[in-house]
């Protein structure tokens, strides 16, 4: 049992009508690790998580989670997992305490034990002060923390987090990252989905990139970054002629081009020496480059590198599906 993988999925396929949402997804997640499923809106992340958390049977393929089959042994799986879905699952018209006590009751706690567990979780997620207030009055970050707490009433063998920080402000995002890291330190296996490369990088041991229902790359953050090269140099030119000349000179080294903006991007290691030599190569006369900027590779860059085309949709606020 301890040898077994936390998640082992083979050839998962799912269609809605003639929309092929998943086209043969394989996943392997080691126990005690953090696994990120990275992909743009509509890639099939939520569908994958819903299959793994027993909510949706796959059309084709099998999956075992915490050692049990997600279709044939779903009751056993359900007793060993927790899910924090993409859409909030705490009741706005109940208080923080009431929400957690209810979850504990559903997990079989007696009344007094449920109260004690709720208080403990509220404390751990820094919500004690708001415990008696209705969740409708909480900020987005507080709501997400409560949602996470609600899935930890019993510590699960595998925790699924579907876009845990989408729509959060940077400070709340950091707080939630810390909460997830604390869980990992306790030995919980985490499978999370995200639209942000940075988030996967920060939290995950292994990352799978999902595009149109297919895993297009999988590996550690370092391995993926090697493929993608994680620092970009954006160069903006003074006119169209210099833009064209630089494009021709860089050739394959151009990773993205925005002709209307007269902007090219190329790969750099980010060191001053490398950036300086790149700029000198491209513009020896020091007259054709208007600005430059270095930045971390974005999900778009990852996509471009892996699929040869941009991720169609920018990360968006969740809409109701």
């Amino acid at each position: 049992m301890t040898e077994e993988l936390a998640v082992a999925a083979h050839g998962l396929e799912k269609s809605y009508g003639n929309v092929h949402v998943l086209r043969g997804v394989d996943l392997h997640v080691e126990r005690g690790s953090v696994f990120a499923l990275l992909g743009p809106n509509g890639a099939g992340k939520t569908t994958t998580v819903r299959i793994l958390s027993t909510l949706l049977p796959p059309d084709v393929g099998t999956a075992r989670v915490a050692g049990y089959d997600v279709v044939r042994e779903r009751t056993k799986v359900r007793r060993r997992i927790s899910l924090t879905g993409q859409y909030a699952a705490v009741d706005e018209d109940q208080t923080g305490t009431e929400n957690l006590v209810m979850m504990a009751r559903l997990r079989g706690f007696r009344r007094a034990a449920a109260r004690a567990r709720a208080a403990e979780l509220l404390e751990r997620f820094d919500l004690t002060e708001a415990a008696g207030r209705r969740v409708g009055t909480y900020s987005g970050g507080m709501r997400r923390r409560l949602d996470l707490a609600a899935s930890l009433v019993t510590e699960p063998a595998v925790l699924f987090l579907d876009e845990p920080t989408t729509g959060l402000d940077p400070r709340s995002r950091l707080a939630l990252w810390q909460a997830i890291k604390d869980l990992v330190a306790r030995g919980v296996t985490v499978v999370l989905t995200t639209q942000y490369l940075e988030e996967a990088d920060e939290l995950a041991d292994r990352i799978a990139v999902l595009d149109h229902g297919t895993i297009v790359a999988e590996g550690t953050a370092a391995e993926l970054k090697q493929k993608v090269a994680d620092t970009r140099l954006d160069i903006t030119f003074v006119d169209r002629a210099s833009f064209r000349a630089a494009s021709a000179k860089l050739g394959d080294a151009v990773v993205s081009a925005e002709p209307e903006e007269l902007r090219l991007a190329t790969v750099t290691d980010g060191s001053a020496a490398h950036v300086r030599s790149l700029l000198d190569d491209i513009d020896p006369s020091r007259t054709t480059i208007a600005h430059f900027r270095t930045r971390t590779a974005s999900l778009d860059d990852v996509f471009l590198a892996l699929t040869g085309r941009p991720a169609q949709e920018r990360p968006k606020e969740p809409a109701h599906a």
Partner: protein
Amino acid sequence: MPEHIAPAPSRVGDLITMAARSLRLTSRNAEALLISLTLPVILMLLFVYLFGGAIDTGTAYVTYVVPGVLLLCAGFGASLTAQTVSTDMSSGAIDRFRSMDVSGAAVLTGHVTASLARNVVSTALVLAVAFAIGFRPVAGLREWLLAAGVVVMFVLAISAVSAVIGLLARTQEGASGFTFFMTFLPYPSSAFVPVDTLPGWVQGFAENQPVTPVIETLRALLLGGPAGSNALLAAAWCGGIFVVSVLLARVLFHRRVR
């Protein structure tokens, strides 16, 4: 790794927890709750004091009208039930519950049970006010118990329909709007005026819709007199509506979570 395996779920325990949750949620929707509790009482007062004098029913009008008002309560409660079901289906709540092995049936039955509990309160309120303004039924304990059974049957049927509406509607507002017809159903019936005083084309509907036999059965029980075939008709209507709604709810639920 500390591995906690949640205990096998208790179906009855889950149902009680879900019903308590539904009651708590609806009791905080202050506006809707207030309407569902006070509107039947206000309507009863309106009927008795404004129109009662003009309507000849052969008994004190308040006595005639109480059974109809009890059914109005069920209609007004329906909107809350549909809203809570619809909210659960369109938020992440239902996925969370199912991932904890709480069945969809427990969630929906919880809402229906809560609806029944709310109706006990609104019915008691209507009866208390009715007694205060001169409602004098002749029923004994046995008739009262049977009458309570009839009301429960009707409320269960209406609540099951409300759950179906909640499963169909994509928004809370939609859910609440759709239940409107249920608050209307008692008007073209024998609830407030004898059917033979209604316009001819309404009479046909009034005689053949579910509310009329339920009302006539309640009147027979509370005021004395023969229920005739009405009792059987009432049971058939309520039972039929309930069973069809439960079957529909199953299908709709599975379609929504796919």
